[in-house]
């Protein structure tokens, strides 16, 4: 028969006090972290709120590149990746190459279908090796040096669009796709992050699948730029957007001043004047370049803008 141990009252009181203090501290800590998360403050242990990654691609040592001045054309690769937790690497399923000419205050954008062939493989696979590999592949295909890569995944995209209050998107054709969840009528539609993601992912509504989808993604980017352009017409708006970026972006090789300058530059461009063209490709599993690609790339590469297309 077991012997019952009787603890003295003072010991019980001590145990109770310590227990209460621990629970209190835990509750306080969780509340603090939650409050910080709500305020958008990056707290490593509780963050999970990184919406996008902005990376400056420094030229490789010995690369044959001419250093450009502040008014030299430069190229930004925008990547929508298919990152999923627990799955290593992420393919670049949405690839858009933006050429910016600060001197001319103009820009153009090439939309690159994800199945475009590059060195025997689909070009979207390069992104599984990182931003630099993606920049090398797309830059190599088009023949331009890529200076910045901006990556966003599904969750990040959704949160970003919601974070700026949604986006007005011009829908070209009826969409009724259960795979992506895109159900839209033609015309301008105000979309939440989730809806914009469905719009950007829809390919089953189109006979040429990813080709039209890629073009739609390009249109979505320009629609978003139009909307942000209205919000960025004051220093106040610029600072708010940059703070949002700063709180929810991983930046590599680029600082707040660079982002400020890039932002000012981006929003000095008129989105209505940005030409947006999907590169010509041929049919097949791995899509080759179609006729006219060489002249399109040459037009784009010389000064970052499309003049004869």
């Amino acid at each position, binding site marked *: 028969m077991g012997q019952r141990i009787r603890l003295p009252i003072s010991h019980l009181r001590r145990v109770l006090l310590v227990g209460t203090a621990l629970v209190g501290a835990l509750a306080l800590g969780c509340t603090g972290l939650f409050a910080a998360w709500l305020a958008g403050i990056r707290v490593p242990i509780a963050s999970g709120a990184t919406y996008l990654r902005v990376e400056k691609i420094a030229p490789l040592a010995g690369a044959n590149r001419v250093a450009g001045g502040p008014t030299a054309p430069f190229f930004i690769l925008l990547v929508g990746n298919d990152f999923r937790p627990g799955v290593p690497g992420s393919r670049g399923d949405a690839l858009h190459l933006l050429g910016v000419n600060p001197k001319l205050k103009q820009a153009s954008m090439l939309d690159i279908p994800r199945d475009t062939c590059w060195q025997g493989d689909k070009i979207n696979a390069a992104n599984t090796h990182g931003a630099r590999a993606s920049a090398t592949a797309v830059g190599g295909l088009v023949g331009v040096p890529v200076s910045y890569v901006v990556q966003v995944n599904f969750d990040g995209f959704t949160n970003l669009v919601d974070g700026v209050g949604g986006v007005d998107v011009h829908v070209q054709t009826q969409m009724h796709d259960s795979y992506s969840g895109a159900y839209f009528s033609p015309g301008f539609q105000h979309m939440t992050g989730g809806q914009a993601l469905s719009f950007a992912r829809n390919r089953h509504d189109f006979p040429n699948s990813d080709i039209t989808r890629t073009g739609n993604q390009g249109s979505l980017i320009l629609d978003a730029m139009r909307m942000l352009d209205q919000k960025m017409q004051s220093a*106040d708006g610029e600072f708010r957007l*940059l703070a949002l970026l700063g709180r929810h972006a991983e930046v590599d090789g680029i600082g707040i001043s660079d982002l400020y300058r890039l*932002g000012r530059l981006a929003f000095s461009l008129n989105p209505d004047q940005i030409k947006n063209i999907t590169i010509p490709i041929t049919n097949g599993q791995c899509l080759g370049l179609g006729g006219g690609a060489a002249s399109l790339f040459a037009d784009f590469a010389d000064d970052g803008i499309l003049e004869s297309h």
Partner: protein
Amino acid sequence: MLVVACGGGKHARPAPSAPVTQGNKAKPAVLAVGEVDIQTWGPDVKLPKGMQKQVLGLAQAYYDTAVHAPLGSGKLGAGYVALFDLPLRAAASGSDAQAMTDVSLGQVSKYTETASKVKISGLADDRGILRYLATNFSMRVDATTAQGLVRITRSVELTYAPSGRTWLVTAYRVTTVRSTPKAKTTTSVAAGGGTTKP
């Protein structure tokens, strides 16, 4: 004064103002701070009093040299160009001067100046260091010129970046409306931060 950090604050226009000055020998209107809104990449940041005073002084210097001095003398005040960082100086005193200053008005015989309170915005980095500050205010001048009465309303946004121990204007957006009994002209200019808006 309202101090808001990290996403707070109203997106308000500068509050209507108080400072008024008259006459062609009068002292310039004295600008006063209104709302303060600091955005940040990291921890909450408050604008130190000294820095607030410094940036208000720069806005005042712009006002004095670009608006008040030309009304009295027909010329820019001393130190106007030095308010801007190097890449902006040519535009601020050249192509954008029509909107930025009242030099084109010439010396006027009688005038009244009114200015709103100054809204100060800021952006701090992830260490809480203020990297950009901006002042936003509006002003109105009613003047009697050789050609008759003219009303000038101007909204001014100056963005500053640190330069050594001081701050210089690194970007601006200014819209100026000049109205006479017969005509009204609007001029908008924006420059800096890496680009000049066309």
